């Protein structure tokens, strides 16, 4: 408002000098106030991050030991024990999820970037992927339960893997598409000029050029589902013992953290903190790697 008034050429002589000065003062005060609010908000927002990471390090590091990585959980009341079976179980479930989810996701991304760029069909698929990305993870758990657990009448690691795979598809598809979109067109045209068929161009030229970006995108999707608990509650279900059978209930790290965190035992709380620290370190390592790759320029020679 004030700006519009002072910018009108006719109104300047009418206004007294003190009024002019007051308006200018108010405008610059508002400006400084907003700048201050922005700075303070950033500090306020970073506080919980520091608090969470600090607590994780403090509580988690003190309870980490060799047994945590080598032993399965002990019965209630007995000290010691670890989460080795949960780490192995998580690896098995995540491996299955990646095997199922990543190829489909990359395929969908290739379709979006190479076959449907700028078309209406592509826009609809892209939109569906974005919307699917926002569906709550627990819904995926219900679907995997209905698909695999209910007909089989027992919980299984496989159902957990399928639930997580469904969650990976849209993320992988969208990153792949974005990375392929960065590949300069002349590179493809050069391949066509050599008489290379389209499928071969996509595989050996486009995907190859974009591969660092696509790999980091897959790691990002992996890191996202690695911490998911809700879809595993009634699919993988958890297990107190060693098990690698994907057709049986299987332990998973986030699941174990949840069970221990809501339990009434101090010893289990301690293990939950340690587990959370291990989970966070794994996730942060991959996110940081992604960041480093992204900063370097994902594509060598890309525009």
């Amino acid at each position, binding site marked *: 408002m004030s700006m519009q008034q*002072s910018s009108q050429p006719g109104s300047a002589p009418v206004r007294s000098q003190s009024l002019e000065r007051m308006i200018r003062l108010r405008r610059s005060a*508002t*400006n400084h106030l*907003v*700048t201050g609010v*922005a*700075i*303070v908000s*950033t500090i306020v*927002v970073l506080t*919980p*991050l520091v*608090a*969470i990471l600090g*607590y994780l390090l403090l509580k988690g590091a003190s309870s980490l030991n060799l047994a945590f990585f080598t032993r399965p959980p002990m019965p209630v009341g007995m000290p010691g024990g670890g989460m080795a079976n949960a780490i192995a179980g998580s690896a098995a479930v995540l491996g299955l999820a990646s095997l199922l989810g990543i190829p489909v996701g*990359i*395929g*969908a991304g290739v*379709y*979006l970037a190479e*076959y449907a760029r700028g078309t209406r069909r592509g826009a609809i*698929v892209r*939109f569906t*992927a974005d*919307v*699917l*990305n*926002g*569906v*709550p*993870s*627990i819904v995926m758990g*219900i*679907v995997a*339960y209905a698909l695999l657990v209910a007909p089989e009448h027992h919980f299984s690691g496989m159902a957990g893997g399928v639930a997580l795979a*469904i969650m990976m*598809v849209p*993320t992988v*598809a969208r990153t792949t598409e974005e990375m392929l979109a960065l590949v300069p067109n002349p590179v493809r045209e050069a391949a*066509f000029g050599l008489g290379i*068929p*389209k*499928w071969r161009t996509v595989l050996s030229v486009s995907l190859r050029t974009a591969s660092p970006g696509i790999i980091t995108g897959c790691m990002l999707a992996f*890191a*996202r589902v*690695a911490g998911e*608990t809700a879809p595993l509650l009634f699919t993988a*279900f958890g297990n107190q013992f060693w098990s690698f059978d994907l057709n049986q209930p299987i332990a998973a790290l*986030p699941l174990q*953290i*949840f069970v221990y*965190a809501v339990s009434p035992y101090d010893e289990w*709380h301690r293990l*939950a*903190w340690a587990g*959370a620290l291990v*989970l966070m370190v794994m*996730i*942060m390592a991959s*996110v940081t790697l992604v960041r480093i790759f992204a900063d370097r320029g994902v594509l060598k020679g890309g525009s």
Partner: protein
Amino acid sequence: MEIPPAMAARATPAEQGSSVIRSFLQKKSSGRMADGVFAGLMLICALAIFGIVVLILLMLIDQSRLSIHAFGLRFFINRVWDPVTGKFGALPFLYGTVLSSLLAVCMAVPLALAVAIFLLDVCPRALRGPISFLTELLAAIPSVVYGLWGIFVLAPIIRDYVGPVLIRYLGWTGLFVAPDFGVGMFTAGVILAIMIFPVISSISRDVMRVVPVSQREGVLALGATRWEMLRIGVLRNARMGIIGSVILGLGRALGETMAVTMVIGNHPGMEKNLLAPGYTLASVIANEFTEATGDLYLSALIEIGLALFLVTIVVNAVARLMVWAVTRGNPGSVQS
């Protein structure tokens, strides 16, 4: 991107000496079939995304048939949730979900916009990268870790320090009434606010960034201060996308399960008091699904899942369309 047919024609009148090469090339198939197969495979992968959405919908409807037949639409206005007598009404969970999400949005939006502005205009260039990286880290922390922190750190802080202050100064509103156990609607709102902040902040920053520089320069040229430039040149132009980012955050909050389950107290009540425990759609599924005895109980829980699915689909679709309206032409980030 098809191979021009002229190219194949030009290859045939080759020189005599290259007949070995020519026969080799002719022996190899033109790749048309391989091309078709490959394109088909990629199309199937893309259609799989549709397939997944349809599959989820059909599965949920199929599995919740029992409950839909038994309760109809009254399911969502019925206040009683009593598995023992077989009475199921989802209203308390609906109330808890909406209230905790709105609380979270109210807390997160001002902060997220302020941080977006800070990172876009105020922050020195050297700090911009590290700070935006840190806010993205907030998005990478798993929900269960937020829950763990919420139970053991945040809930005691709210019980011992924040709660008493709220009761003392805002108790008259009826929103903050003792006793405060630390776990409850308010704590869930705070945790959710921390979790959805990165979504709102990063997407609204993307949206603000695509406002043409000429808009900013124009306002600055009229003698505006930085805040006036942001308000008139940036925020007003990007408002559609900013609202979209807020709705995306809301969608995330509606479906959030683990962290909320761990701090909301899990009691199906409908109180105005924000310090009282509550229950949400997602957390009732998480808590009771494996214990559900009887088909009707399970079916009622799956119907809650169906409601959650439909609501988040609609919310996300609306939000995406709004963000697209602003960033059209510039693909946004996928890390939302």
